[in-house]
């Protein structure tokens, strides 16, 4: 199916989300749509999917102009969408999820599960999308759930598939598998719009790349274009993709974790006998796929969770009995992985958020009373130093973009003298420009002698920043590897192989993952 968007313009009040965007997707083409957060990629796709009506411009399918009044309309025209957040019902089986919305019934009015099951099997066979048809979706790994989403779209005869940031939740191996699936679909004649801000993947899989910036198309590129070319197109200025840093100068041990386990009330072991030590002046990275115990381990480090077993010592002091407040007081900075949920109070102003964990200490608060002047002065300084935009301490935190919100959290945590900084997913959802900034600040904090624990699911980020790397899998530290370990080997650890297997098995991996270590960038 050929899709053409002509001069699509979509405005929200005075804000133009899409400004005369042209996009042509040829039949059987994988079209990469590249852009920073807020560049208008999702808006454009929502226009295509009938969720928004364009203010100007038209949509042509196979050279025929169409208007979509809603997603149902777009679906029947052959457009399928796989959202970043899956629209699946966890307690239903794969077959039930696929048939949902266009259920077929037997004459008695019963669901025809058998026929649906056959259809699922047929489609999954045709495109090599392996799924267990009778398994509950809740029991499946994220990568397989995503395949179910794709199947769902294909079962409705989608001839153009929109994948919105599909790799954000996947392991490197799952990403490789997805890429294989995408190629199989393309060879079968399905057109694919692949939305991403990860340059490497887009370059690897796309046949053609369109770059959006601030709602407008800034250019198209061939997959042969270099990463830095694409990055500067996205950001609008030259970007440095790798982090410049000197070798680490490790000092004394700041954080000592010994045999820590966290068991949830249901008896599920979330963190399993983890031990490590981090010295001042080094970045210790905990890599791993989301949901392998990193979150719980981090929470234990700052006293938000009490470990079931084991001890944690910061600068030699056991923190077992300390409250979060007291732990932060030792000189611990904490950037939580979900900044809107745990890092910021959205309704508070930037200035208030900048003192969220030391508002009751001089000069911000004394004898029960806030010093609003000091809070405002602090905001003015931090906003300048961390280049928060808008540079206005009174702005509500929830009105800021993701990158600027993250800068506020970083600015707050780094505005105190630190001994230990724990940063979880520091660049999740950030655009290239903000990433660069955040990485530079983390390295600068390291060079000041602070011990840094970096928790990240982004392999490139880990490779770019870390001085030592540990991989977490199912609550355990699967292996600790030095810097310079090939990405593929770390990827295998993330997928559960032991260190020895990973070291031996790197050659069997696909080209994409092996190619990565050469580009030890952060994107």
């Amino acid at each position, binding site marked *: 199916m050929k899709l053409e968007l002509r001069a699509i313009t979509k405005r929200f*009040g005075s804000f133009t989300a899409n400004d005369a965007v042209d996009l042509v997707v040829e039949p059987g083409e994988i079209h990469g749509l590249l852009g920073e957060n807020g560049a208008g990629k999702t808006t454009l796709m929502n226009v295509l999917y009938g969720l928004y009506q364009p203010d100007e411009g038209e949509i042509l399918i196979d050279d025929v102009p169409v208007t979509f009044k809603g997603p149902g309309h777009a679906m029947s025209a052959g457009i399928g969408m796989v959202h970043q957040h899956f629209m699946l019902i966890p307690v239903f089986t794969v077959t039930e999820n696929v048939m949902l919305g266009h259920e077929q019934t037997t004459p008695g009015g019963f669901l025809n599960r058998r026929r649906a099951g056959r259809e699922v099997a047929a489609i999954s066979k045709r495109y090599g999308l392996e799924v267990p048809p009778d398994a509950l979706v809740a029991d499946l790994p994220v990568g397989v759930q995503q395949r179910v989403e794709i199947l769902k779209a294909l079962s409705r005869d989608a001839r153009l598939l929109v994948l919105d940031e599909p790799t954000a939740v996947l392991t490197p191996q799952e990403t490789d598998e997805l890429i294989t699936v995408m190629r199989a679909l393309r060879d079968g004649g399905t057109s694919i719009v692949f939305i991403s801000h990860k340059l490497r993947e887009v370059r690897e899989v796309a046949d053609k790349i369109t770059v959006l910036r601030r709602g407008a198309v800034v250019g198209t590129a061939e997959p042969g274009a270099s990463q830095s070319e694409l990055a500067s197109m996205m950001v609008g200025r030259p970007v440095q993709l790798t982090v410049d840093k000197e070798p680490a100068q490790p000092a004394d041990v700041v954080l000592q974790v010994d045999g820590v386990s966290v068991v949830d009330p249901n008896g599920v072991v979330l963190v399993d006998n983890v031990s490590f030590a981090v010295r001042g002046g080094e970045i210790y990275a905990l890599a791993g796929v989301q949901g392998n115990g990193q979150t719980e381990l981090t929470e234990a480090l*700052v006293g*938000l969770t009490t470990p079931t077993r084991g001890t944690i010592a910061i600068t030699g002091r056991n923190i077992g009995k300390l*409250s*979060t*407040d*007291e*732990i*932060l*007081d030792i000189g611990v900075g*904490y950037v*939580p992985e979900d900044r809107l*949920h*745990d*890092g*910021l*109070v*959205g*309704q*508070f*102003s930037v200035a*208030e958020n900048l003192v*969220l*964990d030391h*508002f*009751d200490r001089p000069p911000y*608060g004394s004898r*029960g*009373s*806030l010093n*609003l002047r000091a809070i405002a002065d602090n905001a003015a300084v931090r906003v300048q130093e961390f280049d928060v935009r*808008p540079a*206005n301490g*009174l*702005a*509500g*935190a*929830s*009105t800021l973009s993701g990158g600027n919100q993250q800068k506020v959290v970083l600015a707050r945590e780094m505005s105190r003298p630190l001994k230990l900084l724990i940063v979880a997913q520091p660049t999740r959802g950030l655009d290239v420009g903000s990433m660069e900034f955040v990485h530079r600040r983390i390295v600068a904090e390291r060079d000041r002698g602070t011990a840094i624990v970096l928790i990240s699911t982004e392999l490139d980020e880990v490779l770019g920043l870390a001085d030592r790397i540990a991989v977490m899998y199912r609550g355990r530290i699967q292996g600790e590897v030095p810097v310079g370990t090939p990405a593929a080997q770390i990827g295998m650890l993330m997928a559960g192989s032991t260190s020895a297997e990973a070291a031996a098995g790197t050659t069997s991996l696909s080209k994409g993952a092996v190619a990565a270590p050469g580009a030890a960038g952060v994107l």
Partner: protein
Amino acid sequence: MTYQGTAPASAAEEMLPEAKPGPARRLVDAIRYGNSVVLTLLAMLCALLVGAIMIVIADPPTRSAMGYFFSSPWDTFTRGWHAISAGYVALFEGSVFNPDSLYSNGHTPIFGPISNTLLNAAPLILGGLAVGVAFRAGLFNIGVQGQLIMGAICAGYVGFAFRLPPLLHLLAALLAGVIGGAVWGGIAGWLKARTGAHEVISTIMMNYLALGLLNYLLGISGFQAPGSNQAISRSVHGTARLPHLLGPNLSLHLGIVIALLAALGCWWLLTRSTLGFSLRAVGANPSAARTAGMKIERSYVVVMLISGGLAGLVGCSQILGTNHALTGDIDAGFGFDAITVALLGQASPRGTIFAGLLFGAFRAGGVVMVANTGIPADVVLVIEAVIVLFLAAPALIRAIFRLRESRGGGVGVGQLAKGWNA
């Protein structure tokens, strides 16, 4: 009505350097986009219109004129207009100012209506603050009724059971009332902190407990007025009563001053104190507050103590100022009107004062309206309810008056009406 903390988003908007419009421009924008003051006024207008329809329907002469509407439509309009104007004039005369009082040689005091309005406003403001402060800390205190009853019982008991020197007695009774309400509210906060029991459920249940306790106490000796077989307690001694402000003939007492001081205190608490900062942070985002090292369980207990204490002051105003003796209906509906006042006041101290004055005026004027015109008192309740309903659904007002969608957010009535979990 945007002060720091309530709506940083909209406040920020006005202060962006590139967008610093003059006062006229801001007024126009306020009307076009409908800021909270404009929306409130429009909601009141709508409510008065709905009330007018009710008055017309309830008015017998107008109804009979409707019977022959097509032969003489003018009758319906003149009678309807007469009923509406008589009703709203009575409402005004009962709550603000009655021109007749100028020529009555002192039989009807000039400040009578205002006195009644402020008399009713005091408990409404205090109760509204109780709900509002709790709301800002993320809790929905439905238990003002129970807390004010406990406050009234404690204040009343100290007031009639002890004999103390004048000022000391009043202070002791006030303190007892505050403690009574604070403990009753604090229990709900403690239950939430320790067991996770939802405060809406627990405070409602505590209301029943307080009512039951009150009714029991009104039947036992020591509480019940001697020689009476009615459910009424002994009277508070003169030494423990709140002094009258406008002479002995007008019922206005010191309660309104206490209410205004309490509002000032709440304003300081919420915007200027470290405690208020953490309470607000817990209210707006408990996870982030916890991550920043605040103790959210403690915050729940503390805010319910404060909220209950304010509710206890409502009880004090009732028992030490207005009534002097406990009866089964000592709460006089203030417990639940407090929620409405807090809604209208957007959980801000300043807004709560205005909302309390408005609803106090409705209460005072409603009595006169019923007496003078025979319009059912329910009309006033309907007007109050419609104001809040419209404000809870600002989209409705925007649609009716074709206002534009405002940019930016903040805690509004909408948020309060939806609750935090919505």
